[in-house]
């Protein structure tokens, strides 16, 4: 088996055992990037020298018998929404195209402390606003399974890199589905942890009350491995959760133990909105769980139909404020056409922000403006509470919920760009999870007639990632969807 086909766990163990060197694995990844990325477009920047140097150092440590971290020598890709004190941090935006962060995001620190090799920073919808990565201001990314299609978004660069095995695992961020939906489009595993589980310090904010960083991987175990490294309390993030309240743990321990007496909640009416092929694949996956001994209960989630409305108000309201700082004064792009200081703001922002970002800033500004606050923003916060209530009630009756990660498989590039509302409506299966703050995972569960991957989304209550991963692993252990690779790319 070629090195790049190993899972992150397998690679890590072989590096630790001296069977493969980290330099070898890093070179393999860099070679694949050289060869495949001109087509896929997953990376915004690659860091070959730095990656090889770090890999060499890890190899030396292992050879010398020095202790190494849990990801020692494993090449990882990170979404360019995460600040790094090396290279650029662009967020897929022209406004930050040349921005050099003076500090590392907490998760980046944790990866480095775990001796991971950061090979590059991946493409994304500008400021994580989008569901197709088409909104990147810097590069186009395609779906490795069909290069005429989108990889999903906004973490499309990370999921495409993972699908094309141009990394062994990756980090993404998920504000309304941006890990789970592209994971389902690209046939990989994508996990959004509970809000507060992973520090947001150094994650460029889109919707601060919704954003979470999470792993993208080839297997559930690899996702668990990555989560073990990045989870935990961070004093630099006031919204990261105290260890005492919800201890993060070793998510690999007990991963292979099936959940006894598993109760799966299904909201049939809600799931019926997906394409028939997807409904069929989800149905078969649920059947498989039933065969494994799970019980299925029908749950009523009456407010989920309102999730998109509430989400697009709250996320854009927060975004309109979070993105106010990009003004050409202290860092980032400044227009050369500005005649006064007001024009430094208006022209820099107009020239460097892409359309979707402007659209969302406009929507969010409107929702917060005087006279509209109550009708839009406040109303959305109330609806958010109702949606959370749906989950709370559902989880009284079941251990987890299962639903599609997206209503369709990967769509054609350009298919929805001119109709933002249509694009937003495609987030129906993911946004409620962010509004409620609970964890969710998408794992491969089949393919449609065109050979495009389908994702099964599993949701559990807040801070129950360990259980969520075990449930996901139960299915993965019984199926081999996750072992399929895109063909025709090589």
């Amino acid at each position, binding site marked *: 088996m070629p090195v790049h086909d190993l899972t992150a766990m397998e690679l890590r163990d072989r590096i630790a055992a001296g069977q493969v060197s980290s330099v070898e694995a890093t070179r393999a990844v860099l070679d694949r990037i050289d060869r495949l990325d001109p087509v896929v477009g997953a990376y915004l920047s690659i860091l070959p020298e730095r990656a090889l140097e770090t890999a060499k150092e890890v190899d030396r440590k292992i050879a010398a018998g020095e202790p190494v971290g849990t990801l020692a020598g494993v090449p990882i890709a990170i979404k360019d929404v995460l600040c790094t004190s090396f290279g650029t941090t662009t967020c897929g935006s022209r406004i930050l195209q*040349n*921005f*050099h962060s*003076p500090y590392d995001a907490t998760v980046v620190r944790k990866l480095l402390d775990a001796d991971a090799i950061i090979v590059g920073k991946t493409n994304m919808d500008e400021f994580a606003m989008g569901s197709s990565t088409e909104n990147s201001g810097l590069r186009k990314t395609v779906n490795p399974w069909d290069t005429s299609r989108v990889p999903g978004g906004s973490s499309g660069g990370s999921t495409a890199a993972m699908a094309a095995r141009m990394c062994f695992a990756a980090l993404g961020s998920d504000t309304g589905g941006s890990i789970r939906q592209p994971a389902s489009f690209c046939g990989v595993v994508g996990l959004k942890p509970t*809000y*507060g589980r992973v520090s947001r310090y150094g994650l460029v904010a889109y919707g601060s*009350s919704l954003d979470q960083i999470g792993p993208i991987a080839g297997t559930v175990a690899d996702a668990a491995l990555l989560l073990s490294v990045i989870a935990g309390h961070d*004093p630099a993030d*006031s*919204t990261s959760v*105290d260890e005492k309240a919800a201890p993060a743990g070793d998510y690999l321990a007990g991963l292979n133990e099936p959940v006894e007496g598993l109760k799966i909640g299904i909201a049939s009416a809600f799931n019926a909105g997906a394409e028939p092929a997807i409904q069929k694949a989800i149905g078969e996956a649920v059947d498989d769980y039933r065969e494994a001994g799970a019980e299925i209960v029908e749950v009523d989630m009456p*407010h989920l*139909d*309102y999730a*998109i*409305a*509430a989400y697009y*108000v709250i996320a854009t309201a927060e975004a*309109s404020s979070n993105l*106010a700082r990009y003004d050409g*004064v*202290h860092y*980032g*792009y*400044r227009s050369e056409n*500005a*005649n*006064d*200081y*007001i*024009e*430094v703001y*208006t*022209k820099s*922002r*107009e020239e460097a922000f892409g359309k979707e970002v*402007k*659209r969302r*800033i*406009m*929507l969010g*500004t*409107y929702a917060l*403006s005087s006279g509209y606050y109550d009708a*839009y923003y406040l*109303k*959305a*916060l*109330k*609806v*958010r*509470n*109702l949606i*959370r209530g749906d989950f709370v009630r559902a989880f009284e009756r079941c251990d987890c919920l299962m639903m599609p990660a997206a209503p369709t498989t990967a769509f054609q590039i350009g298919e929805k760009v001119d109709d*933002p*509302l249509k694009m*937003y409506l495609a987030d129906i299966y993911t946004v409620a999870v962010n*509004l409620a*703050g609970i964890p969710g995972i998408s794992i491969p569960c089949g393919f449609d007639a065109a050979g495009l991957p389908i994702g099964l989304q599993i949701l559990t209550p*807040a801070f129950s990632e360990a259980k969520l991963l075990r449930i996901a692993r139960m299915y993965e252990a019984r199926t081999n969807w996750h072992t399929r690779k895109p063909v025709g790319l090589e």
Partner: protein
Amino acid sequence: MQQKIDAQQVRKVAKLARLDLTEAEIEEFTGQLGAILQYVEKMNELETAEVEPLAHCLPIHNVFRADQVRESLGTEKTLANAPERDGAFFKVPKILEDSSS
């Protein structure tokens, strides 16, 4: 059906958001934002008079930091990404009138 938002309002919002939108964008956004707002008003189907707004998902409070000094970036790093600087300062076109906190 009454339009949710007109070009005049879009201009006003653009001014608040410090975006120098083109006329074409104003026209485009007027239609798109109108459609989105129309959709969003679906929320009005729900009775929420008795519902508390939920701004934070987590029930945590009183997260503090001790009043202990840590090193700042220093002038050079602070200004490293500045589009324009004047000595130790960020440089901007002349500001005409002062506001206050």
